[in-house]
């Protein structure tokens, strides 16, 4: 693994390695000194061209807990607002000696371009690109599910909402399929991509029909900023057909968990009672996010890239 660009690039072994490593990283939260020396002397740049609170803070905390030096870059207030190109930004980072770049960009494929263009040599972590992918979110979701459900093999995961615009949904479907889970995506027909045949999951338009067969339900945010295009008649109708309220939650199997990548629209895709219920693991997802991102940064940045060494005697 050189970069983390897509959840689909991960083999089952690689995904499990990241999740197992995250398990060890998570125990750090119980220690008096929440710091590990693994990335001492390495520089991680948080390159955020799009607004983000939790992802950026989570990556920042993860890198700092591993003793890396962190440089935060946001497009607002930088030379990007003067018209600097992605290439020139990358060349600047390279000149500063960035070992790892965590990139969030509004354009799908921007992290891929950074990783493959040769503009810079550091490892690239995709922290969300356009409507394409958000692999660390999928990893932290899988990590959270694994802690609650045990192995994901054969588990039935339901993802509900705006699949068309959701990078979280795409990354989750790819990763969960790799880990052996059976994924169902539920959305109004207008919010599903036209061709779902290459997605390793089943689709449904009827949320109520899949409730009883779900070990975990993941609600996606209704991206209000995109809803001007009239994908559904009204917010109330969306909530009535695809929102998770207490009545729908009551139909879930006993140990099923409720997830949401945040930020939530309470009362829209998820009711406040559900979000605050004991089945909701939404706050835990944020905690786990730091551990998973530590694992990713550790595995990408801690070693040299030559794999010739034999294990120690």
């Amino acid at each position: 693994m050189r970069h983390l660009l897509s959840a689909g690039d991960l083999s089952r072994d690689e995904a499990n390695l990241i999740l197992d490593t995250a398990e060890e990283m998570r125990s750090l939260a119980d220690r008096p000194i929440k710091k590990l020396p693994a990335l001492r002397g390495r520089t991680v740049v948080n390159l955020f061209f799009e607004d983000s609170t939790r992802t950026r803070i989570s990556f920042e905390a993860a890198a700092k807990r591993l003793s890396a030096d962190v440089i935060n870059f946001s497009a607002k207030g930088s030379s990007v607002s003067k018209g600097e190109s992605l290439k020139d930004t990358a060349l600047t980072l390279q000149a500063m000696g960035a070992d790892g770049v965590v990139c969030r960009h509004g354009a799908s494929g921007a992290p891929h371009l950074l990783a493959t263009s040769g503009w810079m040599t550091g490892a690239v972590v995709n922290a969300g690109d356009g409507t394409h992918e958000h692999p660390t979110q999928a990893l932290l979701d899988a990590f959270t599910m694994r802690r609650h459900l045990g192995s994901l093999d054969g588990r039935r995961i339901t993802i509900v909402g705006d699949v068309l615009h959701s990078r979280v949904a795409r990354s989750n479907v790819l990763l969960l399929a790799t880990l052996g889970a059976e994924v169902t995506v539920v959305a109004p027909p207008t919010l599903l991509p036209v061709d779902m045949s290459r997605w390793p999951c089943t689709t449904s338009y009827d949320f109520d029909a899949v409730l009883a067969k779900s070990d975990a339900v993941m609600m996606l945010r209704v991206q209000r900023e995109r809803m001007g295009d009239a994908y559904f008649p009204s917010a109330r109708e969306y909530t009535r057909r695809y929102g998770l309220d207490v009545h729908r939650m009551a139909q879930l199997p006993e140990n099923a968990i409720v997830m949401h990548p945040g930020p939530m629209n309470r009362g829209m895709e998820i009711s406040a009672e559900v979000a605050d219920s004991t089945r909701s693991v939404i706050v835990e997802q944020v905690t786990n996010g730091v551990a998973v991102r530590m694992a990713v940064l550790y595995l990408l940045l801690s070693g040299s890239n030559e794999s010739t060494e034999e294990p120690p005697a």
Partner: protein
Amino acid sequence: MSPAPVPVPRTVLDASDISRALTRIAHEILERNRGADPVVLLGVPTRGVGLATRISERIAAVEGQSVPTGSLDVTMYRDDIGLKPARALEHTDIPPGGIDGKVVVLVDDVLFSGRTIRAALDAIGDIGRPKAVQLAVLVDRGHRELPIRADYVGKNLPTSLLERVTVNLTEYDGADAVLIADKTGAAV
């Protein structure tokens, strides 16, 4: 025992030798610390954890009281971390009572350069402040690169740098044995 290199793995300690060495180490730990009260055993993965568990069983048999036993992964504290490909982490399990004010006995299979133990001392420093740290190893093969020594040694084994010492334990390898082989010899 002759330190001369041999082409095929040779058994230096068999199962009963290992058992006797661990029993002796358990008694020495109790004697040195005047009982089991202050002692916390921390094994260094992977073989050290199995050895720590066995020493803990022997202490329990002698004293009638169990000592807290855990494992300590030192991967992220190694001084060669940036020189090799990223390695998977092992499990760290600190006993619930913690290590503050205790006597931590680190347990490892082979003491060689001493670099693993240096890393372990750094790792301990991030977890708490023990009253003292002691070191128990099954085999001390010499060639130290740091000023580190073991307090409890199962066997001092003079070796050449060209040789490789392997500790096999039933839990991981199916049988108990300490083997020595030429580096070019049969895979061990």
